[in-house]
């Protein structure tokens, strides 16, 4: 049941091109073929000059992430048949990176951000003892398991809306890595990792626009948004949140709503014949918000 499908692939040769260009290739498509299989076929049979990274082809090394029809993911486990839009398949390099050649991007910025968070277990000198350091509950371990599956494919970085407008953002992958170590009972760096992350990146973590793309693009289903929020919570509890967000939270505490139903708003509502609303909802939320401490 072989059929043909068109791959529209972004090309860029730094020596000859000023701008990326697109080239279309016909690919023999058999059921079960992945997008990587398609690229390999192009390289072997049609155009050996096409460059892309690939290695394990089993979804674990993280090399081969590209944008398929605008969304980033490793292409070795993307079925061609699931990704044909309008009769063709668009393959572009990861976004938010500089292109080296064709689908190969410069990931230095990505690795740099990972390194910023001290991505290792700071448990002192490792020794040859006859004992595991770790004494954990399944609860602790489940936090590690939730995040340690990251394969550094950089899909989240590529799909990040905030990074597109501000490359200073520390990015989801580094935050996820920090989370993994912050929840490791063996780690001794603890809050220092957070503080340094903050110091090194300015408003780094706060630049998340909460668009939710990283969570969707993660091939390992890591709850990236949850990790990012957990860091925000920590800093917030130390009174290190940006003023704007503090005000927003205070408004919620004061009024049970973020924007005041002021005179103007109330008049406008009346004029438009909209139902009256309770201006102050704070008493409803007070019992929830007054509780001390950040719950997990």
């Amino acid at each position, binding site marked *: 049941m072989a059929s043909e499908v068109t791959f529209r692939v972004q090309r860029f040769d730094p020596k000859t091109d000023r701008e990326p260009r697109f080239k279309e290739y016909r690919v023999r498509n058999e059921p079960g073929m992945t997008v990587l299989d398609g690229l390999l076929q192009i390289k072997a049979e049609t155009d050996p000059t096409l460059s892309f990274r690939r290695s394990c082809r089993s979804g674990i090394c993280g090399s081969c992430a590209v944008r398929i029809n605008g969304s980033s993911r490793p292409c070795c486990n993307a079925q061609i048949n699931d990704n044909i839009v309008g009769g063709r398949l668009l393959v572009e390099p990861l976004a938010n990176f500089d292109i080296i050649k064709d689908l190969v991007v410069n990931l230095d910025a990505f690795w740099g951000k990972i390194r910023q968070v001290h991505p290792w277990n700071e448990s002192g000198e*490792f020794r040859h003892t006859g004992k595991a350091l770790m*004494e954990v509950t399944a609860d602790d371990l489940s936090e590690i*398991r939730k995040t340690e599956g990251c394969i550094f494919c950089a899909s989240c970085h590529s799909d990040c809306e905030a990074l597109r407008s501000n490359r200073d953002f520390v990015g989801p992958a580094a935050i996820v890595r920090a989370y993994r170590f912050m929840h490791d009972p063996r780690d001794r760096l603890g809050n220092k990792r957070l503080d340094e992350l903050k110091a090194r990146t300015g408003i780094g973590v706060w630049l998340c626009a909460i668009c939710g793309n990283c969570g969707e693009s993660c091939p390992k289903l890591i709850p990236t948004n949850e990790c990012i929020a957990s860091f925000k919570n920590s800093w917030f509890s130390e009174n290190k949140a940006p003023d704007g967000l503090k005000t927003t939270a205070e408004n919620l505490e004061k009024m049970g709503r973020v924007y005041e139903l002021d005179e103007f708003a109330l008049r406008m509502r009346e004029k438009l014949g909209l139902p009256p609303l309770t201006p102050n909802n704070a008493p409803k939320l007070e019992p929830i918000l007054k509780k001390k401490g950040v719950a997990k």
Partner: protein
Amino acid sequence: MTVFTHDVVIVGAGLAGMRAAIEASRQGADVAIVSKLHPVRSHSVAAQGGINAVINPEDTIKDHEFDTVKGSDYLGDQDRIEVLIAEAPMNIYELEHMGAAFSMVGEGEALAQRHFEGRLGTIDQRPFGGQNFPRTCFIQDRTGQALLHTMYENLLRQGVMVYEEYYTTRLVVKDGVVGGVVALDQRTGELHLFRAKAVLLATGGYGRVFSVTSNAMDVTGDGMAMAFREGVPLEDMEFVQFHPTGLYPTGILVTEGARGEGAYIVNGKGERFMSRYAAGKMELAPRDVVARAIQTEIEEGRGVKGRPYVDLDLRHLGCAKIQERLPQIRELGINFAAVDCLTQPLPIRPTAHYSMGGVPTDVNGASTLKGLFAAGECSCISVHGANRLGGNSLLETVVFGRRAGMAAAAFVKGTALPEVPAGVLETEKKRIGALLDARGPESVPRIREELQTVMFDKVGIYRTEGPMKEALAKARELKKRYKDIHLSGGSLVFNTELIEALELQSLLEVAEVIALCAINRTESRGSHFRRDFPKRDDQNWLKHTLARRKGDDIVLDYKPVAITKYPPQERKY
């Protein structure tokens, strides 16, 4: 063109390379890693099942030794196996101290029942093929990934210099002493000389010699070929492990852990046929035994739906166990074969998986060439003999990676920086330039594919002299045809066409050695199974093969096996 100088240059950044780098650096040496991939992309990442060690008081060192010796079909050097097994436990704890979060006893149940209280304090172990005790430590079903990441993180912590995406094109040797390597920075297309007092090869195996393999596309035997070209021998190259459970059709790995957790292998007639091959161990017999059983079923027409595969059935394990213990396998089946193992069996067939052979070294990773060390899959110590046990390769990388790193650091102390041949960089630049300008009629992908197909078909799981000789002739013919290849030229920046052409040189070099060694060994042992010589022959063949390049020829030599405690017996499961 720059000249970099370090005490120790390590080629390859998988588990062995990074472990060696960390150790050498800890010992005070100036270490750099030169790797064609970013470290976390290295193929160690794909190891799924686990890492063996005796850490349960009910287990014994002797049992692990014996299982390994027996698994090796008595070809493993027992003095080295003793080192591997003795140092295994401390290396597990070391990995744990480094940050690896091993699966713990009770974790699975706790997570399944969402019961989170209570401390867990013991590393869990699962049963693995060919072993009499559940001694394989694991991290869910992505042990290699977790360990590789842990190692990379410790490499960062240690501050080791990494030249990533640098393809090493040759070893630099003068007067029988290694003085460094030449490597191509793929990003800029520039060629650089790395001078060093010691070079440590940790380049992994050569799975890509075969058309069906579990190995990554980068596993092309570069290190072995590089050393071989400089006159370093290769040991036991006829021993190629075929993993029984490669996913059909791609050959990517379905972990032995699946069988460890209780999966069945079933043929087209619905039979759990392992009862006919290894009634005692069934699916958990050693890899070579299971791989041959599956291949026999397929060749005798008992594949599923008449196709070249059998079924790996996990359904009876139940959703909870699969989802908790083997989530990656499920993901793999869905994404790569469109099969959900909760409801359907996975189609599998044997796949080329591991190289027992490699650059011969002593127990500290030193090769026969002064200044050259090797560790991991590209080395042959030999602890795996004719067949490696599952869970012993990750172990080998850390035990001998550490030892080699330590030995290399000791070696460079008091050693002067060796001379390098004059103009080596220019010569290499010319060679690469000529390759880039090659405009012959032959295609790199075609030569590669022809090589892989003939090697899988004729020097694969079952071997016979006639077909193997055809394969050898073919490999030699392809080597000639390679001289007339065609490249597109253009810029050297991330020119993966050029890299693939260089890798093909390695594949051709290694394939010829494999075929020749396999033809010469007229017995069956471990993974090397001769239809024309189906019995093991200790009288004549209880010895290691050594292949060495002499000009255009390859000469074979043999050396004895070290036997300390376990005299050879028949290998039965």
